[in-house]
């Protein structure tokens, strides 16, 4: 007979993805209950947006998700475009798709680093963070910024593709594809990795749907749902890719779904580059100081690296947004799914399970 213990993990802990903490109640090695405690990263983004001009928010929204910032820019711009009923040029749609996919690859790369870190395979973070930098170099060439790109504006993107950018992208894609053979050897084909992840933290399909899981977490439980496919935005209806699913719903599946999705992303990037149309890259119908956005409300959803990511956007016709609500994909994952996954888990698996759902605290706290 063991006594029950409470463990406080985080907000600063190598096994925690960002600034939030969990309270674990355990009996011996067995977890009885997990209480996620968030709010450490609350920066009132949604409220701040109401005080800024439409154009000024462009510089702030990417900060809502650090590893995958472009989803915010896309949602924000797309919401404004849909309320104002303005067209985005075809080329801008393709450039946006390219940026979103590159951002997804970069987000997954840093995710694999985290996985390596939680299992104790410390070579993995060194590799993946190094390789992610090649994508950040691409972003630097394209947008002028490495982490926060502040690249999309309502109506298109701020700059056209620089000269020779396509070749650079393809080169980096080839490189990453090559590298993934080595990643397979190091991480995904590692016996230790397999032993630690298989059968750990199982989420059944029914439970996943019930708890509001989306993205790779849902797909790993065997449910094929991807906003890119089911509700195409940007130029996703012009490219061909598969929705990756797995059946088991365990930590291994969740990680491997992402591993295989990178290949699909590389496929999309190549197609986008191949099909990139000529023409305008922005359709600027507004004066940055005087947006003429009519009254209206819209929900824009896209597929982020974490799951379904959405902005509920309300405009009252003034030069500032009336209300923006961010639906962070990580919120249901961290609050409900994580609790479900850790029921009866062993205490050493907590960090791994948490990482397997790839939660992003800034988008939980907004």
């Amino acid at each position, binding site marked *: 007979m063991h006594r029950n213990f409470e463990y406080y993990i985080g907000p600063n802990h190598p096994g925690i993805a960002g600034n939030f903490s969990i309270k674990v109640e355990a009996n011996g090695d067995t977890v009885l209950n997990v209480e996620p405690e968030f709010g450490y990263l609350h920066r009132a983004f949604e409220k701040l947006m109401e005080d800024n001009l439409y154009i000024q928010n462009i510089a702030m929204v990417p900060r809502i998700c650090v590893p995958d910032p472009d989803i915010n820019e896309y949602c924000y711009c797309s919401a404004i475009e849909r309320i104002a009923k303005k067209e985005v040029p075809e080329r801008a749609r393709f450039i946006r798709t390219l940026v979103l996919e590159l951002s997804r690859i970069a987000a997954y790369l840093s995710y694999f680093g985290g996985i390596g870190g939680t299992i104790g395979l410390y070579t993995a973070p060194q590799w993946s963070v190094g390789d992610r930098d090649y994508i950040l170099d691409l972003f630097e060439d394209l947008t002028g910024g490495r982490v926060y790109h502040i690249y999309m504006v309502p109506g298109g993107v*701020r700059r056209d593709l620089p000269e020779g950018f396509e070749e650079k992208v393809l080169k980096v894609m080839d490189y990453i594809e090559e590298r993934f053979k080595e990643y397979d050897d190091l991480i995904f084909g590692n*016996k230790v990795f397999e032993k630690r992840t298989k059968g750990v933290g199982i989420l059944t399909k029914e439970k996943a749907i019930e708890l509001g899981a989306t993205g790779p977490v849902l797909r790993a439980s065997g449910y094929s749902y991807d906003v890119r496919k089911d509700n195409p935005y940007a130029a996703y209806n012009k490219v061909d890719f598969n929705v990756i699913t797995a059946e088991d719903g365990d930590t291994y599946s969740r990680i491997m779904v992402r591993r295989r999705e990178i290949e699909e992303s590389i496929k999309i990037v190549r197609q986008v580059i191949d099909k990139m149309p000529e023409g305008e890259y922005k359709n600027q119908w507004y*004066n940055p100081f005087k947006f003429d956005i009519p009254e209206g409300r819209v929900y824009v959803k896209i597929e982020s690296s974490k799951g379904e990511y959405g902005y509920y956007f309300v405009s009252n016709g003034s030069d500032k947004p009336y209300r923006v609500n961010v639906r962070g994909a990580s919120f249901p994952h961290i609050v409900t799914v994580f609790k479900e996954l850790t029921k009866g888990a062993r205490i050493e698996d907590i960090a791994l399970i948490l990482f397997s759902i790839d939660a992003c605290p800034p988008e939980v706290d907004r």
Partner: protein
Amino acid sequence: MSANLLRPIKSIEQIFRKPHTIRFPEEKKEISPRYRGFHITEWEKCIGCGNCRDICPVNAINMEVIPRLKGKVEIGENPERPAIDYGRCCFCGLCVDICPTSAMSLSQDFIMVEPELNDFYFISDEKRIDKKSWVANEEESLVDFKRKKMPVLSPAKRVKSFEEMVLGFPENIAIAEANRCLECGECVDACPAHMDIPEYIRAISKGDNKESVRIMYRTNPFLMTCGRICTHNCETACAVEKRGEPVAIRWLKRYAADNVDIKDYPDYKVEKIYKKPKVAIIGAGPAGLSAAFYLSINGIIPTIYERHSKAGGMLRYGVPPYRLSDKELDKDINYILSYGAKIKYNTVVGEDIKIEWLLKHFDVVYIAIGLQAARWLRFPNYRHKNIYSAVDFLEKVNTGKKIKIGKEVLVIGGGNVAMDVARSAVRLQHMEYGKSNVKILSLEAMDELPALEEEVEEAIEEKVKFIPRRSVIEPILEGKKLIGVKTVKVTSVFDEKGRFAPKLDKSDVKEYKCDMIIQAIGQMCPFHCLEDIKDKIKMTPQRKVEVKDSYETSVKHLYAGGDIVNTRMDAVSAIATGRDFAFSIVKKYLKREPVR
């Protein structure tokens, strides 16, 4: 994919590869040509408009006054330059994208090590500069440099009558044009009347023309007029103008005024009519009427003495109807007079009524007589019946009096009046003969013409021919009939100091055929109407009436305004002096701030 304990060992070959990392600072990373680093502000290009400060999402930019630039900047510029707080800056580059003059850019420089906190706040200049990287060309900029098109009558159509050639913006285009304004307010300083331009343009862009008109009436009672014939100094100062086409401020004013009925014009509640001071205004031109308007809404009802049988002065008799028709002018004047100002028409001061009498019976006498007298180029036989002055010619055109227009008309002069005269002559010729032959002879070369560029362009569209750099020495007469002019070449118009001092080359003589000459070389003030007082009035070196801030001349109770005071002789400057005179009277006699 089969998991295997030995597979990770393959990674050992990494030892023999080159590392990802860069050995800083020995090794330098190659910075992308679009990198967003520290700011570069090119001071020669910067006009201090403050758009970068306004768009900055994190309030990192502050416009600081630069003492050594004070008093050295042109109209439409501020002696301020952006100072940036790098504790706040988020390097988004929106300041670069909004900069209308392309003065701002971001560099590839991103390393800053400073010991003091305050060192991170400094005025961005070219001191700590690396290569320019994030720049915004016209296409990339957030500013809309393209003006919306104004519908106008085609040249072939408009020369057939005196119908107004500019048709005015339709609603959607007016709102789109109003939406181009960045609201930096450079135009306000440039406008002689300091109208609240960004405010009224914002009202137009929101579709509230009534509010827009109300804002305009705070500073200017001639909206229909200024919306058509203003010299639009504001547009020259417009920040967008530095790299593109300025916001069409004048056409927007016209749009708002056209689309508001006189019933919906602002309703000033005049609470009390004051018996004192009694104000007499000489001349019902733009200065006189604007003074009358701002006096009457403040409860001082002036008496205006006007030479003609209708009010408006040069606006009515000097501006051809294709630019400003009587109907539009009457809307302005009717509204001004609706506040009670009395006008005594057909009264010539100096003949019908003496200025001494006015000074005795009124507390304030305001002279706004303008420049009604023609200036003549006194070559031999200049009093020929086929040689007109611009003032006489335009007055005849405007009052509809019959003019025997020549078949070949020569206009002397290169200013806006010369263009008005030439284009009126074109219309008269078309109405009379079905074709036109008008030449403009000017001392200045084509690029030196003092007329507005658009006026010259429109004149050329109407097939007016230009004879630049010539000077008339005498008309050629055949008996009593005028058949041409003899001209000589002008080698230069201005001396090194930029003063007007034409140099002629008398050996280069050329003759031009013409049967009618109209001199449009300038006007002067008919000072003789002031009689004895005239000698007591102090003049400035530019032969203008010297006035104090309150527009009082050196003679007590005698005030002056309009073209006889202004060095810039356009309608809006005259309007501004009239308004300011009215305000100074309100402050002086009623001891309160004027209602506007």
